[in-house]
C-alpha cells in the first residue's frame, strides 16, 4: 500500500520571545492510501498543530513529513500553496465558503488557482457537487443552504481537485447530530466507493467512531493509535432512523 502521509519525529516549537511552547514533541505517524483516520485530542493537545502541518498550512520545526512521497517539511509559503492546491482538500468546522458566491463557484475555487480553464472548471465542479448530492443546488448561495448542505459544498470543493488527502477539521462541530450523521455518511461513502483518504480531526469520540482508525494526541505526543472496533455506519443509522 502507498503511504499518503509519512511523518517521522515531528517537532513544533512556537517561540514568541519569552514563552516557548513545545506543541509537538516527536510525532511519528503514517497513513496509507484509502484509509479513514480520526485524529482525536482535547484542545491544547497539539491536535490542531498536527493538523496544520499535515495540511501544509504550517511547517514543522524539525522532523520529516512526506506527503505522497514528497518531502514537504521544508517548502516555502508559495510551494505549500501549490501542494495544498493539488494534494489536499480541506473541510473546516465553519464551512468556510465564500459569501455571496454561488455553490459551484465556491467549488471551482481550487481549480481557478490550479489554472484550469473555465469549461473544465465548470464540468469538474458539477461532478464534485453531484458526488455530495447537491447537483441541483449549484446556483444557490451559501446563505440559501442549510448547514449540512453548506458542509457538503465544502466537501465538494475539497474533492474537486482529486486530492491525495481530504483533511476534515471538526467538520461536524457546527452541525446538529442528525446533520452530523449525514455529513459523516458522505465521508464514509467517498472513502468506501472512491477510495479517498480521509483524515478527520475531532474531539468528539462518537464522531471518531465513523473512522477506521483513531489516533489520540495528548501533550504533543501520540498516546494511542488503534483500529476502531464497533465502527459506526452512518448510512445504516440514517436508514434506521427513517424507519
Amino acid at each position, binding site marked *: 500500500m502507498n503511504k499518503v502521509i509519512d511523518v517521522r519525529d515531528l517537532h513544533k516549537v512556537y517561540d514568541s520571545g519569552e514563552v516557548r511552547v513545545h506543541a509537538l514533541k516527536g510525532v511519528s505517524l503514517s497513513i496509507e492510501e484509502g484509509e479513514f483516520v480520526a485524529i482525536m485530542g482535547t484542545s491544547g493537545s497539539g491536535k490542531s498543530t498536527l493538523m496544520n502541518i499535515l495540511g501544509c498550512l504550517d511547517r514543522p520545526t524539525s522532523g520529516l513529513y512526506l506527503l505522497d512521497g514528497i518531502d514537504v517539511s521544508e517548502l516555502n509559503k508559495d510551494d505549500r500553496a501549490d501542494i495544498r492546491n493539488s494534494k489536499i482538500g480541506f473541510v473546516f468546522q465553519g464551512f468556510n465558503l*465564500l459569501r455571496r*458566491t454561488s455553490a459551484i463557484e465556491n467549488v471551482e475555487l481550487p481549480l481557478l*488557482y490550479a489554472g484550469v480553464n473555465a469549461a473544465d472548471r465548470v464540468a469538474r465542479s458539477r461532478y464534485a457537487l453531484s458526488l455530495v448530492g447537491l447537483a441541483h443546488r449549484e446556483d444557490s448561495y451559501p446563505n440559501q443552504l442549510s448547514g449540512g448542505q453548506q458542509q457538503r459544498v465544502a466537501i465538494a470543493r475539497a474533492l474537486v481537485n482529486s486530492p491525495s488527502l481530504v483533511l476534515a477539521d471538526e467538520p461536524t462541530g457546527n452541525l446538529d447530530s442528525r446533520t452530523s450523521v449525514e455529513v459523516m455518511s458522505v465521508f464514509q461513502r467517498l472513502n468506501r466507493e472512491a477510495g479517498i483518504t480521509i483524515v478527520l480531526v475531532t474531539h468528539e469520540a462518537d464522531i471518531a467512531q465513523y473512522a477506521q482508525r483513531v489516533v489520540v494526541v495528548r501533550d504533543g505526543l501520540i498516546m494511542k493509535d488503534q483500529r476502531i472496533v464497533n465502527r459506526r455506519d452512518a448510512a445504516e443509522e440514517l436508514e434506521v432512523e427513517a424507519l
Partner: protein
Amino acid sequence: MIGAVLKIALRALARNKGRSALTMLGIIIGVASVIAMVSLGQGAQKQVQQQIESMGTNMLIISAGSQRTGGVRSGAGTSTTLTPEDLDAILRDAPAVTALSPSVNVPVTLVFGNGNWSTRGEGVAPTYPSIRNWTVASGEFFTETDVRTAARVAVIGQTVASQLFGGGEPLGQTIRLRNLPFRVVGVLGAKGQSQFGQDQDDTVFIPYTTAMKKLLSTQYVPTAYASAASTQATFEAESQINDILRQRHSIRDGQENDFTVRNLTDLANSAEQTTRIMTMLLGSIAGVSLLVGGIGIMNIMLVSVTERTREIGIRMAVGAKSKHVRTQFLLESLVLGLAGGLIGIATGVGLSALTSSVFGWPATISPTAVFSSAVFSMAIGVFFGYYPARKAAALDPIEALRFE
C-alpha cells in the same frame, strides 16, 4: 488566470457598490477638477493670446525721441527725429519688415450735421489695418493715392459711427474735422476694449500725410508700427531697424539712440507665461485632491483587506499563492482608480463646458490633460493599492482562517 482573478476583483467591487462608489468619488473629484482647471486655464491662455494678437501680430513699435536736451530727457515720441524718409528707408532696406505704417495722433472733434464727437484721430498708411489686425466692415480703407495726395478722407471706428450717425449710413457722408471737410470712405470692424480698458473703436483714421500737412503742419512722425513675417523675424526686424536708423541719424558707437524700437513679442511671451503658470498652479492644486483621492483608495483597501481576512485565508487554503491574492487586490484598486478616472474625465469635461457657458469663459479641453489623468488615476490605483495588496498577500493562512 488573470481573467479569472479580474472577474473575482470586479465581483468583489460589485458586492460593495456603495463603498466602491464612495471610494471612486475621491478620484472622480480629483480628476474632474484637474481637467476643469487645466481646461479653463488653457482657455484663459488662449484668450490672452487673442487679445495680444488683436493689438497686432508680430508687431514692432518705433518711436521717435528720448533725445537728451541739456540733461532733460523728453518722452518717447515727442522729439522730431523720425521722418517719413526714415520709414521709407526701413521699408526698403530691412528685409525682415513686411509692412510699416506711421501713426500720427491728432485729437479731433468731428462734426456732422448738428452733432459732434471728440475722438482720437490717427494719421496712418493703408498698410495699418494689416499690421494692427483691423478689419473694414463697410466701404474701404483709403489708398496709397489718398496718402500721396493727402486726400481728405476718413475711416471711422464703430463707436464714432454710432455716435455721429446713429443708425444712419456714414459712407459717402462728409464730416468736418478741425473745420476741414472729410469724406467717410470706410467703417472699421469692431475690436472692443483693449487690454487696458480703452475703447479701441472710438477712433478715426486719416492718411498720415493729411494729418501731418493739413492738421499739424509737421514733417516728423512720432510713432510707427511695423510688422514682421513671423515671431522669430521680429527680433531680426528689430536689429535691422536699429541699424538703419542709427546709420541714417549718424549715431556713433556708444551713443544713445534717438529713437526706440519695442518688440511686442516680449509682451506676448510674458503674458502667455503668466497664464501658463496660472494653469499649472490651478492644475497642481487640483492634483492635490487627486492625491487625497488616492489615499482614500488606500484607506478603503486596507479596511477591505482586514474585513476579508477570512476570505483571503480560504483562498490561501485552497491554493492561492501570494501573487494571486496580491493581484486580486491590486486589480480591485486599479479598477477603482481607472473607473474613477474615466467618470472624472466625463465630469471634468462637463464641468468645464458648463462653467464656460455660464460664465462665458473659454475652455479648451486638453487631450493631454484627459489622457494623463486617465493614466495617472490608474497609476494612483496601483500605487495606493500596492500596500494593502501586499498586506493581504503576506497574511498567514492559519491566522487568516481563524479570523472572525
